[in-house]
């Protein structure tokens, strides 16, 4: 039996304006979704060209959710996006060329080649770099919220996790602590239905993961993760509730992981019909149609966005390829922080 609230889709432009988005914002969301997908498509090509070491992960199918949530964040809010959440980095303002440099292990990537793929974050933009042990970032985000609460700042932390990560203890410990202390944190579950090859019925036994929120003493919401405006509205509501002292919310964004776990995985275990069904709900195509039907996006506007995104990505790849590989002598650098390192945006 479902306990969580199931969010309604967003309909008209006036409803969207009520949620705080003007037409300019809507076109920016569309642009950010295109950049997000474009980076991952181009990254895939670079990988096949042998220019990206290691493996390669994408969040195809999750663009609406990641961009929608990040659009609802305030400038002083912080978050711990994961490997399906490229849209968060893009929306917060990470320059695409630095992401390509990161993919390729170059010196100008945010981690200077020390870590790969989406294991990165720009602290100036309020983001904290993820680790592979995905739910480990939940208690960390809860700790950020704890700092805000202790200092009585009106800031909110966002913690991303997948339905796979929901099985681990960190998720429980983080949510329980946040609930007990009513901390200003919003938990975002990217439920893409597959943890590598494991389907949801082998991952959890409740109907919705958002149902669990009630047991932690806060609200759970299930939202269609391909509907960027519904995601935005729910995130905005939850973030402002947390900011006002109303405590956490768990938002479960339902999507389908449209590719394998990583580039080496052809996802043979996902039924073809499932891919076909979700392909019809492609988040970008869905939003494009909405913009044309409800916000009068013109052919000229659409062309301008498509062309400028293409140009941005071409320039980004060219610039990233100019970035040098890291000097091997830097292997020893930075294991320990120095007092000067505490002069960061977070430690002000």
């Amino acid at each position, binding site marked *: 039996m479902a306990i969580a609230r199931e969010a309604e889709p967003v309909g008209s432009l006036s409803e969207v304006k009520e949620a705080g988005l003007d037409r300019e914002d809507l076109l920016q969301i569309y642009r950010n979704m295109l950049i997000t997908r474009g980076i991952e498509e181009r990254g895939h090509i670079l990988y096949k060209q042998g220019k990206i070491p290691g493996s390669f992960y994408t969040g195809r199918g999750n663009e609406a959710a990641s961009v929608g949530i990040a659009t609802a964040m305030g400038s002083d809010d*912080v978050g711990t996006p994961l490997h399906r959440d490229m849209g968060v980095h893009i929306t917060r303002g990470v320059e695409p060329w630095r992401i390509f440099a990161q993919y390729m292990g170059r010196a100008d990537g*945010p*981690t*200077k080649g*020390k*870590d790969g793929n989406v*294991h*990165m*974050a720009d*602290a100036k933009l309020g983001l*904290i*770099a993820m*680790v*592979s*042990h995905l739910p*480990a*970032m*939940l*208690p*960390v*985000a*809860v*700790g*950020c*919220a*704890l*700092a*805000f*609460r*202790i*200092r009585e700042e009106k800031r909110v*932390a966002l913690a991303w996790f997948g339905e796979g990560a929901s099985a681990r*203890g*960190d998720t429980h*410990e*983080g949510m*329980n*602590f946040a609930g*007990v*202390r009513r901390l200003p944190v919003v938990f975002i579950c990217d439920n893409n239905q597959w943890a590598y090859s494991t389907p949801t019925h082998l991952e959890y036994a409740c109907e919705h993961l958002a149902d669990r929120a009630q047991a932690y003493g806060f609200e759970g919401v299930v939202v269609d993760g391909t509907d960027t405006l519904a995601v935005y509205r729910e995130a905005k509501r939850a973030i402002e509730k947390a900011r006002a002292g109303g405590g956490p919310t768990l938002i479960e964004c339902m999507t389908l992981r449209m590719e394998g776990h990583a580039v080496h995985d052809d996802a043979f275990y996902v039924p073809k019909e499932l891919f076909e069904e979700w392909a019809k709900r492609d988040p970008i195509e869905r939003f494009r149609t909405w913009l044309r039907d409800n916000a009068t996006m013109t052919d000229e506007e659409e062309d301008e966005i498509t062309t400028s995104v293409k140009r941005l990505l071409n320039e980004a790849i060219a610039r990233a390829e100019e970035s040098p590989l890291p000097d091997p002598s830097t292997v020893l650098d*930075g*294991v*320990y*922080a*120095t*007092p000067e*390192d*505490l002069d*960061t945006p*977070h*430690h*002000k």
Partner: protein
Amino acid sequence: MAEKTYLQAISDGLRQEMRRDKRVFVIGEDVGVYGGAFKVTLGFQEEFGPWRVLDAPLAETAIVGGATGAAIMGMRPVAEMQFADFISCAWDQLITVAAKQRYRAGTPVPIVIRLPSGGRFSGGPFHSQNPESSFAHIPGLKIVCPATPEDAKGLIVSAIEDPNPVLFFEHKHLYRRIKGEVPDDRYSTPIGKARLHREGEDVSLITWGAMVYTATEAAKQLEEQDASVEIVDLRSIMPWDREAVLESVRKTSKVLVLHEDNRTGGFGAEIAATIAEEAFEHLDAPVKRLAAPDTPVPFSPPLEKAFIPQVENVVSALRELVEY
């Protein structure tokens, strides 16, 4: 200057830092109303309030992960594990997130984890361990093991000031047994500098934590037999004061490394290997190690006594070296 117990010294240092720096807060199980299982934070909640002395749910991952997030946001958390043994529940947060965040993402994580450690009270396998060596193998962590009240205060201050994750191993056997003069004013004791606990000519004994006192008793016995033992108290094992150890070894030419953690892969092995690499030509005897055997910490008093290095074990190890 006043005489304080080891426990009071930790408590005083922590309280002083909380008074001067609003960013410092305490989080742990039963640290608030109850004042901590060993009463290190007794009276703190009355003075600093419930949001700077936080009673956490029984969840070490949330405690260490929460401390990490708060530290990244500019706070200076001091988290207490009720017993050092329970840090195993937070291993992932500490090793995967806190220890590596600076290297891979450039984000410093200035947290202190206080770890009441060590045996001799029939605490059994889960309340008696000295697991410091396991953490010394993890790049990015600092590991502090004070032996005296003066160092306990000075090192808790340094640990809080340090921009890195610092594991502060405080030995439970010393809490109320060891007293010493502790300056009232604020001071810090540098992490990575050994302390010459006792000067001697014939054998060097390298150790830390509660073993400093076992070593001292043994050294007194050897003194009666005309052999003088130099005791180097490392005070921290990551970083550790290689130069102080090598200097002592070059002087005495014989060395015993002693610790309460298990023998195999224990930090004593690292010290012994370093001495072999760097001071081989100064040695007049093989480097000797004395440590707990490779077993869990047993419960029953005679078994626990057989596990933890005793004064008589140290005496015979030293005598073997003197006579070599």
